């Protein structure tokens, strides 16, 4: 491979041609995403019951949370166990703004994202000094503290104080939804579109300078520093991005649930979120969609067929064990390979699978 003479003129002109930004691979992916969106936005609301439409709205919301957590875990190598608390902060801010102002819903989502980003970045401050188990522990403790504060403060329900909490608990108004999406199917479509925008925001980050910096930090922090990367800045940037999208998700959650209670935001949800992100695939944006399905649709299905969702704790434990030992890139990478093997088995044709798992993300 290495045949160039050092003494020869090596001008870049006439050298390798950079792959097109909109090459065939990107076009195929864009086509898959377009078909996926058409099915989700048009077909599903027409054929599913309200029960499942509400469950899928939650899937859209938690897919956003999972894509943010995927950035931290999969791209930067920072294990945060505080995302459920960050989501609760976003939901609280959005609910307070929706009750206290007449701002358009989109503006409320943006404000919720920005304010949550500021607070969530504080959660990321310990990341500047620690990693691994210690960071996980610190963020879990912070999540617990935030949950306690929110339980004391209560979620806004139309009151007039700073907390917006009406202790009388009578005539409690529902959290308003955007005018164009007051019904459940319409709000589902609205949530999917917002989720799509958040995924695009993350994708842009991954494909540009921050994404490369995060890849370097994940590989080796000393090597990243030696490459001139300000690791402090980019780690905080990752926490800021994850917090922003999670804050927006909190705003959607407020509109989806219409009534918020602190009991809905358990500290252990952060651990379950990490489990489903690992199972779905932390290195791929589609993995966040699968994680959202695991976290919200699977319990709804079990509930619908009369099985207690509590079994999921055991199921997720087995799932994480399987992923960590056999498929570190998650279901999103494993499922196509397994389907190909099954197809080969059924048709009698064996297909050789690549030994190296891809960790490249993308829509």
């Amino acid at each position, binding site marked *: 491979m290495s045949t*160039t003479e050092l003494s020869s003129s090596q001008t870049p002109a006439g050298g390798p041609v950079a792959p097109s930004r909109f090459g065939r691979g990107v076009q195929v992916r864009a086509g898959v995403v377009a078909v996926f969106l058409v099915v989700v936005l048009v077909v599903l609301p027409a054929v599913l019951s309200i029960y499942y439409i509400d469950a899928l709205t939650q899937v859209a919301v938690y897919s956003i949370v999972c894509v943010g957590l995927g950035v931290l875990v999969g791209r930067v190598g920072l294990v945060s166990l505080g995302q459920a608390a960050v989501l609760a902060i976003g939901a609280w801010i959005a609910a307070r703004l929706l009750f206290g102002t007449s701002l358009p819903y989109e503006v409320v989502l943006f404000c919720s994202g920005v304010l949550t980003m500021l607070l969530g970045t504080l959660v990321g401050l310990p990341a500047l000094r620690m990693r691994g188990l210690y960071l996980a522990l610190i963020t879990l403790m912070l999540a617990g503290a935030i949950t306690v504060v929110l339980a004391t403060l209560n979620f806004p329900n139309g009151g007039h104080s700073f907390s917006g909490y009406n202790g009388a608990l009578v005539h409690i108004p529902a959290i308003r939804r955007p005018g164009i999406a007051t019904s459940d199917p319409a709000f589902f479509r609205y949530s999917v579109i917002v989720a799509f925008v958040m995924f695009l925001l993350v994708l842009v980050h991954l494909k540009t300078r921050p994404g490369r910096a995060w890849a370097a930090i994940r590989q080796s922090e000393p090597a990243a520093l*030696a490459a001139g990367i300000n690791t402090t800045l980019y780690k905080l940037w990752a926490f800021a991005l994850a917090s922003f999208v999670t804050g927006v998700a909190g705003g959607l959650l407020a509109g989806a649930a219409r009534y918020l209670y602190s009991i809905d935001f358990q500290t252990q949800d952060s651990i379950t979120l990490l489990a489903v992100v690992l199972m779905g695939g932390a290195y791929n944006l589609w993995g966040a969609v699968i994680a959202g399905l695991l976290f919200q649709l699977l319990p709804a299905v079990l509930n619908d067929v009369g099985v207690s969702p509590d079994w999921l704790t055991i199921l997720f434990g087995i799932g994480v064990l399987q992923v960590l030992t056999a498929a570190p890139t998650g279901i999103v990478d494993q499922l196509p390979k397994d389907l190909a093997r099954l197809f080969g088995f059924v048709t009698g044709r064996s297909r050789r699978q690549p030994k190296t798992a891809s960790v490249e993300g993308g829509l």
Partner: protein
Amino acid sequence: MIDVTDLTVKFGGVTSLDQMAVRFESGTCGLIGPNGAGKTTFFNVLSGFVKPAGGTVTAFGENLLGMAHFRRARWGVRRTFQTEQAIENLSIYDNVGMIHEHSKLSGNQRRDDVLGAIAIVGLQDHAYHKVATLGAGDRRLVELARAIVGKPRLVLLDEPAAGLPDEETTRMGQIITAIPERTGALTILVDHDMSLVSSCCQNTAVLDFGKLIASGPTDQVLRDPNVVKAYLGTENIAA
């Protein structure tokens, strides 16, 4: 030129560098010594990963120790590591380009610099391939391209040919020898392969237990009785 005076590094009760004083003038210089002598610690001080207990390091007139670690790379301190650090899921171009992203040059100039560095190490036909598709030798070359892209002033190579077969080591040596001429950078090479050091380096310094025991023209240093006793043993490679 890099001027080191009284550089001392302590880890608890262990003195890893003991009042090291050395000057690396220009070209490619060697830094050798037995395992644990303090070579990588010296590189870590220059990179900003280790804060010395005392001493000064002046590089091209600048106080290197006063710079934040990530700013040193932007200023021109580049390095490779003993363990290969190329990022698998990025292309060769992106691996090299990320080092140069912080320069204030135009996008076209940066692109030309990145492709130029890739061409110097001979990987120009694979510039947009992912590093995951490369063999060990080519991954080392990617790291070398990362170290020389743009306008490096000081290139620190920490056992860049470790584990490579003879043919690839020879090729690596040719590229290392050409770095000062192609980039103008002062290059310091740490390696245990004395044939590589003697073929690449005009001058060499020798560390033993954190102390500088010899420095000067490579062929003389490799014949120095203290160096033979402390590091080379009875085998004189340069002979």
